[in-house]
C-alpha cells in the first residue's frame, strides 16, 4: 500500500469536515477524490500533505507514519501539485523546477549535482517544457505554468503525487495535455497519484478508482464505471445528472439535466417541403434521432431531415463531404441535420401520420428497389460499391423514448419494411428469393422527447403496433409510386 488513511476526522471549530474516513491506495494507482464543494476533499489532501495537523486518525505513506516523517523526508516520498500556485515573479522555469530538488540536498551550501540536473531535465521532458527552461514563469500560459509546477513535483522524485483540482483554471487543451502527461508519467515511473477532481468526466477518464466524498463521509469507493452511478451522483451533488458511454474509452461520461421547460412540439409541428432535388422535413424544435443516415448518424439532435435525390451515375467516392457541402449551400446546419441520399424521385415521397390516443407517429418514406437484396442470402452477392440508398425512411414519434425504445423502434420499422417488400413480391434479382430491403437503405427514428414516456417500442406495445402499421403502409405506397413512374418511362 502506498497510502493508508485510517479513521481520519477533522473539524474546523464546531464544523465536522471529515468524519472517520478510511481508505487505502495501492502502488501505481491513479486514485480520484470527488465531491461537491465543502465535502472535505481539499482538507483531506491538506492533511496528507501535512499542511494541516492531523488531529484524529492515522495516515501512513509507504509504510511510514506521517507523524514520524520530517518535512524533508515527507517531500522525498510525496509531492503536491496545488490548485493554484502563488505567482513568484521573475523566477525562471529552471529555478522553479530546481526547488523540487530541495529535499534531496544536504548541508548548508549544497552543490548542484549531476543527479539533480538529470532529475530536473527528466521532469521538464516529462511535461514537455524542455524548450522553455530559461523562460520567466510569468511569460508562460496558465497551462504551461501549471505544467512547470508539475515538473517541480516530479523533480522531487516522489512515489506519491497529490493533486488538488490540478486543471481548475485551465482551458480544455491545457487540461487534456496536463492530464495525459500526468497519466503517462505515472505509468512510466510507477507513480501513485491521488487527485481531487472537480470534473466528473476527468475523474472517470483518468482514474483507476474514485472515492466519492459527501459531507465529510465516504459515499462510494471503487472503479468509476461501478460507483459513479447517476443515482449516487445525483444524491451527492444534488443536481440531476445523466450518464452516457464515452465513445472511445470504456468509461462513463456525465452531463447535467438542465431544468428547462421545452415548448409543446407535437408531430403536427412538422413540415414537409420540397426542393428541386430533395424532400425536406423540418421540425419546430430539435428532435432526438437515432439514424444510419449519411450525415448525422448515431444519436443526434436534429431539426432538419433532408432526403436528397442524386442521379444513378452519382460518384460516391466522397458522398459525405459532398452531402455536407450540399446542406451548407442550401442553408441547412450540418450539425443539426440528418441527411440521406436516394436515386428515387423525391416527388414520390410518402408522408403518413397517425394520431393515437396517447401518441402520434409520422413516417416519410421514399422507395426504389432496383438493387433489392435478400439479407439472408446477400453473402452470395459480389461485393458492390455503396450506392445511394433506395428505401429511405424517417419515423417521427411524439413522446419521450428511452434508448431501448429507440432500438426497438428501429427493429419494428425494419421488420415492417421487410414484410412490405415481401407482400409486394419484390425479389432479389441475383438470388431470386424474396428481398428484405435494398443494399443501402437508411432509417432515422426521431422523437420529440416531450410528453409521454415510452420505455419500449416493440410490437408488444401500442406505439410499436402503430409504428409497424404506418411503416408498412408507407413502404407499400412508396413502392407503388415507384412502380408507376418506372412503367411510365
Amino acid at each position, binding site marked *: 500500500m502506498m497510502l493508508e488513511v485510517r479513521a481520519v476526522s477533522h473539524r474546523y471549530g464546531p464544523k465536522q469536515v471529515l468524519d472517520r474516513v478510511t481508505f487505502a491506495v495501492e502502488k501505481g494507482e491513479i486514485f480520484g477524490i470527488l465531491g461537491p464543494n465543502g465535502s472535505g476533499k481539499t482538507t483531506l489532501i491538506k492533511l496528507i500533505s501535512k499542511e494541516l495537523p492531523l488531529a484524529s486518525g492515522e495516515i501512513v505513506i509507504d509504510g511510514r507514519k506521517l507523524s514520524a516523517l*520530517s*518535512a524533508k523526508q515527507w*517531500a522525498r516520498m510525496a509531492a503536491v501539485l496545488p490548485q493554484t500556485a502563488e505567482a513568484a515573479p*521573475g*523566477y525562471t522555469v529552471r529555478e522553479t523546477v530546481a*526547488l523540487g530538488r*530541495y529535499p534531496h540536498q544536504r548541508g548548508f551550501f549544497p552543490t548542484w549535482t549531476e543527479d539533480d540536473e538529470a532529475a530536473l531535465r527528466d521532469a521538464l521532458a516529462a511535461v514537455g517544457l524542455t524548450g522553455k527552461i530559461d523562460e520567466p514563469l510569468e511569460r508562460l500560459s496558465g497551462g504551461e505554468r501549471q505544467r512547470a509546477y508539475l515538473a*517541480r513535483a516530479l523533480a522531487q522524485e516522489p512515489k506519491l503525487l497529490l493533486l488538488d483540482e490540478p486543471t481548475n483554471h485551465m482551458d480544455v487543451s491545457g487540461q487534456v495535455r496536463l492530464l495525459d502527461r500526468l497519466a503517462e508519467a505515472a505509468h512510466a515511473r510507477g507513480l501513485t497519484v491521488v487527485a481531487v477532481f472537480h470534473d466528473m468526466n476527468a475523474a472517470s477518464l483518468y482514474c483507476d478508482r474514485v472515492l466519492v466524498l459527501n459531507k465529510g463521509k465516504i459515499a462510494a469507493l471503487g472503479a468509476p464505471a461501478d460507483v459513479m452511478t447517476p443515482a449516487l451522483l445525483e444524491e451527492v451533488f444534488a443536481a440531476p445528472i445523466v450518464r452516457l458511454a464515452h465513445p472511445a474509452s470504456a468509461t462513463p461520461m456525465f452531463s447535467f439535466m438542465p431544468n428547462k421547460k421545452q415548448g409543446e412540439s407535437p408531430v403536427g409541428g412538422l413540415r414537409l417541403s420540397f426542393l428541386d432535388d430533395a424532400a425536406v422535413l423540418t421540425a419546430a424544435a430539435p428532435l432526438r434521432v437515432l439514424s444510419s443516415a449519411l450525415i448525422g448518424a448515431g444519436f443526434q439532435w436534429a431539426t432538419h431531415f433532408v432526403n436528397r435525390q442524386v442521379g444513378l451515375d452519382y460518384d460516391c467516392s466522397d458522398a459525405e463531404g459532398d452531402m455536407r457541402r450540399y446542406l451548407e449551400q442550401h442553408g441547412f446546419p450540418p450539425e443539426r441535420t440528418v441527411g440521406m441520399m436516394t436515386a428515387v424521385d423525391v416527388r414520390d415521397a410518402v408522408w403518413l401520420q397517425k394520431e393515437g390516443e396517447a401518441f402520434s407517429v409520422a413516417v416519410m418514406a421514399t422507395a426504389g428497389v432496383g438493387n433489392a437484396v435478400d439479407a439472408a442470402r446477400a453473402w452470395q452477392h459480389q461485393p458492390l460499391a455503396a450506392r445511394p440508398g433506395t428505401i429511405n425512411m424517417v419515423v417521427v414519434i411524439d413522446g419521450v423514448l428511452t434508448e431501448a425504445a429507440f432500438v426497438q423502434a428501429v427493429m419494428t420499422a425494419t421488420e415492417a419494411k421487410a414484410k412490405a417488400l415481401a407482400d409486394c413480391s419484390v425479389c432479389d434479382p441475383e438470388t431470386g428469393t424474396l428481398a428484405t430491403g435494398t443494399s443501402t437503405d437508411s432509417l432515422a427514428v426521431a422523437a420529440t422527447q416531450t410528453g409521454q414516456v415510452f420505455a419500449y417500442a416493440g410490437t408488444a406495445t401500442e406505439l410499436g403496433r402503430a409504428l409497424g402499421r404506418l411503416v408498412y403502409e408507407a413502404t407499400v405506397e412508396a413502392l407503388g409510386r415507384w412502380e408507376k413512374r418506372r412503367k411510365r418511362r
Partner: protein
Amino acid sequence: MWMYILAVTAAVLSLLVGISTGSLSIPFSSIVRILAAEWFGAALPRHIPADWVPIVMAIRLPRVVLAFLVGASLALAGAAFQGLLKNALADPYTLGVSSGASVGAVLVIFLGWQWPFFGTFTLPVVSILFGMATLAAVLAFTRAVERRMSVETIILAGIIFGAFFSAFISLMIALTGEELRQIISWLMGSVAMRGWKYSGLLLPFFLVGAAVLIANSRELNAFAFGEAAALHVGVDVTRRKVIILTAAALLTGAAVSVSGTIGFVGLVVPHMVRLVCGPNYRVLLPLSLLYGGAFLVLADVAARTIIEPRELPIGVITALIGAPLFAVLFFRKMKRKMG
C-alpha cells in the same frame, strides 16, 4: 560571475571614494599606499604627508567601514523580509525591531544615561538589548496567536509593536527639552564620529546574520512561491521562518543601534538588485550586501559634502538619491517588459 565582479568593484570603489572625499581630498593612490603601510608594513612614500595617515586610519576609514556594514546589513535584512513575507513593501523596519531599538537609544539620550565602563557606548548597547527584547516579544506574541506563525500574523504583530514603541518615542520627544536636537538627529541616522567601536559592535551580528541568511537562500526561494509551496518541497516552514526572521531582525537591530533609523536602503536596494539580476536569493543576497554597503557609503559622502562643512542627515540623502534612481530603473524595466 560578471555580476559579482561588478558588485565587488563597485563596493571597493565606493570605499575609496568615501575615504578620499572630504575637506581635504586624498588621491586613491595615496590611500592604497597608506593602507599598505599600516596593514602590511610597507614603506610610506615621501610625498605623502604624515598627517594624512591619522585622517585615513582614525577618521575616514572607520566611518566608511561603518557606513558599509550598516548599508549591507539593512539591504540584506530588507531582501530577506521582502521574500519571506512575500510583500514588496516590507523593509527591515516592518517587524518593529527597529522601533524597539530606537526606544532604547532615545531612552538613553532622554535620561542622559552613561553606564560606567561603557561611557558613550552605553547607547548602542542599550539599543541593541531593546531590539533583541522586541524581537523575542514579537515572535512570542505571533506564536501565541497562531502556532503556525503565518506571514499575515507576523506582519500584524510587527505593526502592533512598532506603533506602540513609536508612541513611546513621540512621548519622550514631547517631554524632553534640552535633548530634542540630539534625539531627532539620532533618529534621522548618522555614521559620523563613531570610531571603530561601533563597527566592532555591529560586526559579529553582521557576520552571523549574513551567513545565516545566505545559508537559507534556497529556503527563501521556496518561500517566494508561498508557504504552502515551501512546505511541499520539504522546507521545515515554521523553524526556517523563525531562523530567517531572527537573523534579519538582528541585522536590523544592530544596524539601528549604531547608526539610527536610516530609511530607504533596506527597501530599495534589494528591489534594484532584483530588477537587474532577478529574484534568485543565491545571487540576490550577496549582491544586496555589496550594493547596500556601497550605496550607504556614497550616500554618506553626499551627506557630508553637499553643503560643506555642515552635514546633512544620511537618512534624508538615501531617499534623495535612492528614489530617483529607483524610479529610473523601474521605468526602464517596465518599458522593456511592455514594449
